[in-house]
């Protein structure tokens, strides 16, 4: 009789980005950035509602967010947005079957066409663009 427990890897398996290449890492980053951006979005809606407290209330809130810590958090948000956007476009195109290769008779060593250089380059590009955007954001925020 098979064990009732399905022997699922669980969240540990879902979040382990090693073992399967950069595409698995991109999947994990997409989830993490998505959750991070959702949290920032909710916080931002609350933050901007302080405009209804008039100039004094608004300045009070700016005093919390326009600090070095606030700028670093915003820079991280910038990085997350850029990665999530660029990788999201890659994933969207992939989901439509674009860039995943054409079916062909498989032959040894059976390298999968869908895990091709185009997608790998797109993933690395999104990471690099996110880093560049973060640096630009930090330069703007700390430069003033």
């Amino acid at each position: 009789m098979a064990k009732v427990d399905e022997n699922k890897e669980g969240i540990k398996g879902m979040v382990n980005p090693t073992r399967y290449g950069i595409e698995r890492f991109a999947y994990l980053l997409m989830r993490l950035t998505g959750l991070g951006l959702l949290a920032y979005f909710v916080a931002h809606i609350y933050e901007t509602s302080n405009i209804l407290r008039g100039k004094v209330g608004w300045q009070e809130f700016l005093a919390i967010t326009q600090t070095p810590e606030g700028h670093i958090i915003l820079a991280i948000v910038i990085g997350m947005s850029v990665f999530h956007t660029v990788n999201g476009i890659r994933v969207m195109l992939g989901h439509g079957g674009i860039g995943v290769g054409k079916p062909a008779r498989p032959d040894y060593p059976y390298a999968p066409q869908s895990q091709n250089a185009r997608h790998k380059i797109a993933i690395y590009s999104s990471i690099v663009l996110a880093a560049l955007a973060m640096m630009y954001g930090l330069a703007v925020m700390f430069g003033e």
Partner: protein
Amino acid sequence: MTSEGLQISKEESGIIVSPTKTITLRISRYNPKINNESKFDEFKIPYQRWTTVLDAILEVKKHLDHSVAVRYSCRQASCGSCGMKINGRPALACFTKISELNSDVITIEPMNNFPIIRDLAVGFERMFSNHKKIKPYIINEVSEINPGTKEFLQTPEDVEKYIQFSSCIKCGLCNSACPTMATDSSFVGPQALAQAYRYVADNRDKGKDDRLKIIDDSHGIFRCHFAGSCSQVCPKGVDPAMGIQLLRGYLLGFRD
């Protein structure tokens, strides 16, 4: 044969014997009737250049511990029976050489996301039922075998569109590697989705709309996020990730 004859045959044979080394196998042991949780047993096994993980496990069974439960059959990566987790990554034991693992200790566990029967043998009921769910057969009201009807014509180009996906040996490695299957018990799985595409891409089949309806579900094709791990581990080059994205193209309107 004279000693001279033996001497000549040795020189002419040119057989190069690879040196024997020793490896430690850490095999996961779990018997649901006796144990509450799994443990590892270690075995030291000699191996040569071409020794596969399956060869090593069978050496353990032959000389050290016959009770290790393992499923295997063809020993040549065509039956899909010996799927297991080797050093953390799902692979066929008969298709994985010890020498290519570059490790002094080989950890062998049963595939994740499959219920364990005992030790390295896992149950395939869920995978087979998901496979059956997507109707893995040609759907066509006209039958080739009725007398008087013509055979279904298929050009070599038509065959190229799906032959890759028909190489599936149902080993389950893709389902084991999939990050969605790690947490989602209801997900249909990369194996079933790739097979759904195999039939949709076959020009003899008229069941595309039926299958698209089945997979257009909250735990269907849209729970695949193109992590690609299924394709990374597939031993037959089926590339299930490609099949799934091509299939999704139909639902998203990228293809007709």
